[in-house]
């Protein structure tokens, strides 16, 4: 198991109160596996990713749980220790390709420094590795493009550069935080193709964060659905998508228009997600849930069947079947 997260809690201790952004998340990612992490805005996907790398900014911090990377707990490690992992063993790609590269440094600088942050190699060698990485992500004539600055690249190209940087050290795990959300369909497709190929070729594990079920469906081996800081359902992609059991997952699927006849009214989930500050005890979804009962006043435990896990007192198993 490359990564195993157990009962992760990441809280923001703000003046207004404690925002439980991630509140008891558990999942695992095996070698070469692609995990799709889906959920609505604010459900805690990004914070989960940052927690793994130890990059949660104050006033947030990991308040509990374990993050086991090859069995070793990363929680509580010093920034110095984490630094040796970041970019080397675990890499991350961010959503907005316009913002992830430093606009005033050349691509070369940004790549070479990454190489040399972990490996004591000459500039020339670092550069060679940078050229190679750019080639891998499909940037034409990488040797020349190295001297360019980010603004000279289009969004898709920049995202490729970011991926190339993530690849420099052939990390065992890449956390991709909605890296294609800002891109157009055709360009998104290009990036997905690159990522998919790389993951396959190098056996890299991947956590793919997205709110687009379609993207995750096409890419991930397994899916974890987040709601209000918890993973409410997780399992094989096909299982989760074809026979979702959590009412939230079901509601999500019904909200996607493409699943319905044209013009037919959609079946949206009523209401909206609770804000992270005011979450009350019990199942966070119960106020929007069609199946909620008095039982939901307390937090459901995780139930499981054949690697398909959910947190709900009223799993819609019958429907699925």
């Amino acid at each position: 198991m490359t990564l195993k997260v157990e009962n992760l809690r990441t809280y923001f201790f703000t003046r207004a109160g404690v925002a439980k952004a991630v509140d008891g998340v558990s999942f695992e990612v095996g070698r070469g596996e692609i995990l799709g992490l889906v959920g609505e805005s604010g459900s805690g996907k990004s914070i989960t990713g940052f927690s793994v790398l130890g990059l949660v900014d104050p006033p947030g911090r990991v308040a509990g749980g374990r993050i086991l990377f090859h069995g070793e707990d990363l929680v509580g490690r010093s920034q110095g220790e984490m630094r040796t992992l970041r970019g080397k063993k675990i890499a991350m790609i961010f959503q907005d390709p316009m913002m992830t590269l430093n606009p005033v440094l050349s691509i070369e600088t940004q790549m070479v420094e990454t190489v040399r942050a972990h490996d004591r190699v000459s500039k020339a060698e670092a550069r060679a590795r940078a050229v190679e990485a750019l080639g891998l992500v499909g940037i034409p004539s990488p040797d020349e493009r190295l001297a360019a600055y980010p603004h000279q690249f289009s969004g898709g190209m920049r995202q490729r550069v970011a991926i190339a940087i993530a690849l420099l050290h052939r990390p065992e795990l890449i956390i991709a935080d909605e890296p294609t959300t800002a891109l157009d369909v055709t360009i998104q497709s290009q990036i997905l193709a690159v990522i998919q190929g790389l993951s396959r070729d190098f056996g890299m594990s991947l956590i793919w964060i997205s709110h687009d079920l379609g993207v995750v469906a096409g890419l991930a081996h397994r899916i974890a659905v987040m709601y209000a800081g918890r993973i409410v359902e997780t399992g094989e992609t096909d299982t989760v998508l074809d026979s979702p059991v959590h009412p939230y997952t079901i509601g999500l699927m019904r909200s996607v228009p493409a699943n319905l006849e044209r013009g037919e009214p959609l079946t949206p989930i009523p209401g909206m997600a609770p804000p992270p500050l005011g979450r009350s005890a019990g199942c966070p979804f119960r106020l929007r849930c069609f199946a909620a009962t008095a039982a939901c006043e307390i937090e459901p435990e995780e139930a499981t069947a054949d690697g398909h896990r959910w947190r709900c007192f009223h799993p819609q198993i019958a429907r699925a079947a």
Partner: protein
Amino acid sequence: MTIFIIRRFSQSLFVVFLTSLLVFVGVYAIGNPVDILIPADASFAEREAAIRALGLDRSLVAQYGTFLVNALHGDFGRSFVFNQPAISLIFQRLPATLELAFVALAIALVLGIPLGLIAGLKPRSVTDETIMTGSILGFSLPNFWQGMMLIMIFSVWLGWLPSSGRGESGEIFGITTSLATWDGLAHLILPATNLALFQLSLVIRLTRTGVRETMPLDFIKFARAKGLSERRIISVHVMKNILIPIVTVVGMEFGSLIAFAVVTETIFAWPGIGKLLIDSITVLDRPVVVAYLLVVVTMFIFINLAVDIVYSMLDPRIRLSETQ
């Protein structure tokens, strides 16, 4: 680049033209320099002779016309007081002002950037609050009052540093400067500090704001995710970004540094162009005032040009060659 220079150049020509016109009309409106310059026991005849000698008997339009024609030939008139080419008077004293301004700028940058970094990296800490309150103090103290206090404390009470004049100068690389001798340096410290204080505050705040704005950006987080050390992140990723506003603002402020030298030079009797300007205004020495503005405006233009070039070196998004 060419366009840029054309634009700057034509704009500045316009500015120079406008200011010279303004000064002419202004001086004409205020009074007759001769009234101030002639001795108290002068007779009518002497007065008239002086007026004629200085060309002040002619109409404003005629005077201005002559000025323009001469200016096109590189002659900007002679000082009424010194009877020397006004331009050469300015150039005589320009080095002193430039020296003062540059040293002040250096002080501001050398102290300001580290202080701003310290403050910006630990926002809301005691250190930050102290530095920031101090920098507001720098803004709040009127320049002349600072100067007075500096003199009072360091010259009069403590007797450490001289309070006026420029001191001995020596040569470094063929440039005559006070920096070459101890005496010169000692004379430079107080006025330069006085002049630097405002800029220092400015640099501190710019740096701090820059740090605070840059730190939460995604590319800093990405740099961390790459495993870079905090040192490299700050010294390269953050610094290079914040240098851009600092260079622009400080460059623009260099102009006001020279302008504010008027006050500092008055207080510290620094023989630069600022003091010359004040003196010239009080005696209505119009050619010198015009020449001052001319030189200063031209200087602004060159400074701005330099700033733009440095800017473009720092910020790849703005390359002068790319017309945008």
